[in-house]
């Protein structure tokens, strides 16, 4: 039999590396080392990635610091301008000017903060109230890590306060925990906002006249807009609960951005912002005789209530 007629069954297991090299094939001899070669390739990649992450983290942290400084500056300027003009008009303006400014300011307070995203952080609040009333009876804090933003205005004797309360986008309950109990009496959809607006009365109604409207912000759906009308004539149903801010807490003004426990680096910046805003707010409030009177009334009310309980 002619051997040349057999089919070639060779497996080409050539162990000569030189031949393999020349043929352009990968040397089989090196195959057992492939894994370690890969590891050697991966470690530099990982180290490089880690280095890049650190660089990015440094860059973002620097930017963070710069943003916080800019924010402090802008806040200072804003409140300085606000207080300055308020003071100027209240001193020099005629009655008509004052009325006009009061109207403008009320409109401004309500318009400019609509859909705002300010007040991120650990239950801190910023408040701006009109001349007529600096007393803030409504709680505006509904949890340890929640935040809200408040705008207050007074129309005649009926005080209207608007709170911007962050909420979960998936939460459709329109619930704002504020330490008071409410009865829902209506709901409607408005043309300007696809989310329904819920209407609540204080559970002490009709003796307590306070009403509340809650609607998801049309401009920023991450916030609920809670509008309170009137002043509670009774203490909160949950005065010591976590949902209820302390009286001191309710007067705090802050532009805190995240939970302080997670950001030791940011604490100093936050403190600075808080201090500036607190100082400006305190300065504004202490100049207002109405606020002083309201505070005195609140304190004396507490004293009178204590013997009863």
């Amino acid at each position: 039999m002619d051997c040349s007629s057999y089919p070639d069954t060779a497996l080409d297991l050539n162990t000569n590396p030189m031949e393999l090299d020349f043929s352009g094939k990968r040397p089989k001899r090196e195959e057992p080392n492939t894994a370690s070669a890969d590891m050697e390739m991966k470690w530099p990649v990982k180290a490089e990635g880690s280095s890049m992450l650190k660089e990015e983290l440094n860059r973002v942290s620097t930017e963070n610091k710069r943003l916080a400084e800019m924010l402090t500056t802008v806040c200072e300027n804003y409140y300085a301008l606000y207080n300055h003009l308020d003071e100027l008009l209240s001193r020099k303006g005629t009655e008509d000017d004052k009325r006009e400014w009061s109207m403008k300011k009320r409109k401004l307070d309500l318009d400019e903060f609509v859909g705002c995203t300010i007040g991120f952080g650990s239950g801190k609040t910023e408040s701006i109230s009109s001349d007529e009333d600096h007393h803030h009876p409504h709680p505006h804090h509904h949890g340890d890590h929640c935040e809200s933003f408040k705008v207050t205005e007074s129309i005649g004797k009926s005080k209207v306060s608007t709170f911007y309360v962050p909420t979960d986008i998936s939460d459709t309950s329109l619930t704002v925990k504020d330490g008071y109990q409410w009865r829902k009496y209506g709901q409607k959809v408005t043309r300007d906002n696809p989310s329904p607006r819920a209407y609540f009365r204080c559970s002490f109604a009709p003796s307590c006249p306070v009403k509340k409207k809650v609607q998801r912000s049309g401009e920023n759906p991450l916030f609920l807009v809670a509008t309170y009308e009137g002043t509670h004539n009774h203490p909160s149903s949950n005065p010591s609960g976590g949902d209820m801010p302390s009286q001191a807490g309710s007067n705090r003004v802050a532009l805190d951005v995240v939970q302080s426990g997670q950001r030791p680096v940011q604490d100093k910046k936050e403190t600075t912002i808080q201090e500036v805003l607190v100082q400006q707010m305190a300065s504004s409030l202490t100049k207002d005789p109405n606020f002083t009177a309201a505070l005195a009334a609140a304190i004396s009310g507490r004293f009178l209530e204590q013997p009863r309980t």
Partner: protein
Amino acid sequence: PATCPLMEELNRVSAENKKLAEMLTLMCENYNALKNQLM
């Protein structure tokens, strides 16, 4: 695994940055609105 804490920190700081930027934008808008109202 060594990059995980770094990544977490980066995500946290980035989120904080975003919030700060939003707040800054808002405050700038408020400031300009106030200025324009009183011009």
